[in-house]
C-alpha cells in the first residue's frame, strides 16, 4: 500500500500559494486513482494554522506540522530537517510537493537522506491500478518522457499550471505536531530578506493572464535607419501597464545588457525565457520582434494561446508554434493595441 504525502509551506502571509493549491488538486486526484493508498499532509512554516485550515477538507488522514520561527524563512538546513522529520513520521512512499524555490532547494537533500529517488517538474501522471506513471520533460522540455519507479520513497515536485487550484470548505482537523530542534550548526545561514533585481520596474508577474515576450528586434534599426530604444521602452512599458502582462525576453536581448550595450533598464536576466531561461505558464502569450528556432521557442512551450507580431511571415518563432501571426511593424501595432486597452 502506498502512503502519499503532500508537502507544503505557507506564503509570507500565512496562506497557501497558488502552486501549493494546484499541487494539492493533483495529489487528491492521485489518491483517488491509486488503489489502496493512504493520504497524509505535511506543513512547515512559522505559523501553519491558516494553511492547514485552508487544506483541511482535502481528505488527508493526518496533518503533520513543523512550525516555529526557525521555519519562517526559506533556509535549506532547517527546511531539510523539518521535511525529513515529516517524511519519516508519515512513512511516506510517495512524496509530492509543489515546485517552489523553497522546496526545489530542500527536497533533493531529503530524498538523499531517505535513500529515495526524485523527479522534478512533473507535468502529469497516469495510474494503472497500483502503478503510478509520471510525465516530465527532458532536454528543457524538448521531449516528454513517461516513466515509473519502484524505488521508495519517490519524491515528486509538480509544476505549476498543470492542475487547477484546489478549493474546498475547511473542516476541523487534529494536527500532529513534530518537534524538530534546530541547533546552531543549522543556523549558519541567516536569511536577511528580499531584494528586487536591478531593474527600474517590476515586470515579472507570475499570476498575469498574458506573457508579453519582447525580442531583440526592438533594439534593431527601424525603417528610418535609426535605433529607437527610448520609444521601444515606452511602448513595451505601456502595453505591460495596460494589459497587466508579465514581461519575458529572448536571450539575445538580455545578453546585450551583460555585454554593455544599451538595453532596457526594466529588463534583467530574470525576464529571460527559453532554453536557458524560464518556461513560464500563462494562459496567453504575445511575442513581438522575436526571432529564432527551437531553443528559443522552448520559452513559451507552456503558454496556452500564442500570438506573434513579426515582419517576417516565415518566422520560426511563429510558424507552427503560434496560433496567429500578425505581419506588421511591432512599434506601430503594439502602440495601437495599448491605446485600445
Amino acid at each position: 500500500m502506498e502512503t502519499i504525502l503532500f508537502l507544503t509551506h505557507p506564503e509570507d502571509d500565512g496562506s497557501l500559494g497558488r502552486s501549493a493549491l494546484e499541487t494539492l488538486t493533483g495529489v487528491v486526484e492521485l489518491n483517488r486513482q491509486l488503489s489502496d493508498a493512504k493520504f497524509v499532509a505535511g506543513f512547515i512554516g512559522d505559523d501553519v494554522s491558516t494553511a492547514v485550515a485552508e487544506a483541511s477538507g482535502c481528505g488527508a488522514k493526518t496533518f503533520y506540522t513543523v512550525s516555529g520561527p526557525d521555519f519562517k524563512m526559506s533556509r535549506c538546513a532547517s527546511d531539510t530537517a523539518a521535511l525529513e522529520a515529516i517524511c519519516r513520521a508519515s512513512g511516506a512512499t510517495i512524496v509530492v510537493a509543489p515546485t517552489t524555490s523553497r522546496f526545489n532547494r530542500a527536497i533533493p537533500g531529503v530524498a538523499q537522506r531517505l535513500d529515495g529517488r526524485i523527479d522534478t517538474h512533473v507535468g502529469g501522471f497516469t495510474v494503472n491500478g497500483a502503478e503510478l506513471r509520471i510525465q516530465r520533460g527532458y532536454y528543457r522540455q524538448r521531449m516528454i518522457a513517461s516513466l515509473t519507479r519502484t524505488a521508495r520513497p519517490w519524491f515528486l515536485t509538480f509544476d505549476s499550471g498543470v492542475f487547477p487550484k484546489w478549493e474546498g470548505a475547511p473542516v476541523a482537523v487534529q494536527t500532529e505536531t513534530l518537534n524538530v530542534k534546530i541547533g546552531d550548526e543549522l543556523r549558519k545561514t541567516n536569511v536577511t530578506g528580499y531584494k528586487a533585481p536591478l531593474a527600474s520596474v517590476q515586470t515579472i508577474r507570475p499570476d498575469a493572464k498574458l506573457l508579453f515576450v519582447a525580442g531583440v528586434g526592438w533594439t534593431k534599426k527601424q525603417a528610418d535607419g535609426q535605433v529607437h530604444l527610448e520609444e521601444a521602452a515606452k511602448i513595451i512599458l505601456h502595453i505591460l501597464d495596460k494589459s497587466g502582462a508579465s514581461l519575458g525576453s529572448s536571450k539575445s536581448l538580455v545578453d546585450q545588457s551583460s555585454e554593455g550595450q544599451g538595453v532596457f533598464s526594466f529588463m534583467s536576466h530574470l525576464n529571460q525565457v527559453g532554453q536557458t531561461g524560464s518556461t513560464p505558464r500563462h494562459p496567453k502569450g504575445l511575442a513581438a520582434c522575436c526571432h529564432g528556432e527551437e531553443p528559443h521557442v522552448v520559452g513559451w512551450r507552456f503558454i496556452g494561446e500564442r500570438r506573434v507580431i513579426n515582419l517576417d511571415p516565415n518566422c520560426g518563432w511563429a510558424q507552427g508554434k503560434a496560433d496567429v501571426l500578425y505581419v506588421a511593424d511591432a512599434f506601430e501595432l503594439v502602440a495601437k493595441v495599448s491605446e485600445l486597452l
Partner: protein
Amino acid sequence: MSTGFHVVVCGSLVPDLLQTLEPVQGPAGPGLRNELMLPSVLDPWAAHALYEAGHLAATVPGTRVWLVSLGPKAKLQQLMMSIAQKVPFEFVAIDASASGFTDPVEVAAALADAIEMIPALDRSRLLLFGGCASASRDAGVTVQLVGERLGIADQFLAVDELTVSAQGTLTILERVEGGKYLVSEVAGPPCAIAWATGNRPEPPNNPQIGMLNMRTIMPALQKARLVQLSAPGTTFHGVELPKQERRTRIVKDVPIEEMAMEIANWIKE
C-alpha cells in the same frame, strides 16, 4: 580572506543547444539519435558556475578551482578544447554517460565520490558550485544531492550573485518567485551554490590559461574512472517529442487598426 576557497564546479556536457534532438529507445533505455555524434557544449548553467568560480579565484587570493565533469571520455576531451582557455581550473574527469536520462542520484554519487578523492581538497573551505539545472536532465537536483552526500547543510539554488566580505562572510542572492531575490548571509564555507545565469559574460579565450589547464586536463582524462550509471527499478515507458504543431493563421495586408482591435479584444477576453 587569507587562505581562499576551494571551489569545486560540477559541470558536464550537453548537446549543442541549436541541434535538433530526437529520442530513440535503446536496449539500456532511452537516448538521443546519434548521441555520440552530436556536437556538445558545457552545460550553460554549469558554464556560468565555472565563470563565477574563475572570478572568485581572481579576486580572492589563495582560491583554487576544480572542474569535475562526468561524460564519455572522448567527448570530454573535445569539450576541453572549447573551455580550457576560459578560466584556470584543475580537471577531474569521470568516464560515464552524460545522457539526460541518467538518474540524478546515481550521477550525484559518482560526482561526490570523485570530489572526495581530490587529494588537496580542504573540505572546510569548500564551495560546491554547479548549475541550478541542466539542459539535459533539467531536474535541478544534482548539486543538492552532491552537497548532501558531502555533508553540506547550507545550500543555495538559482543564485545570481555571490559577494565575499573582508571578514569572509558570503552574501548570496537566490532567485525566488515573483522576480525577486532572497538574500542570505553565511558565515563561511562549506556551502553548495547552484548557479542561475549569474551576471558575468563568457570570458574571452586566453591561450596562456589554456596552456596552464592542459597540464591537468590530459592526465585527468587518462585516469578518468569508468562509472556505469544505472537506475534499478526505473522504467521509461516512452519518450516523445511534444506534439505542439499549431495551424498558424497569418494575418497580413490588413489595416493596422484592424489587427490592433483583434489583439486588444483577444487580450480582454
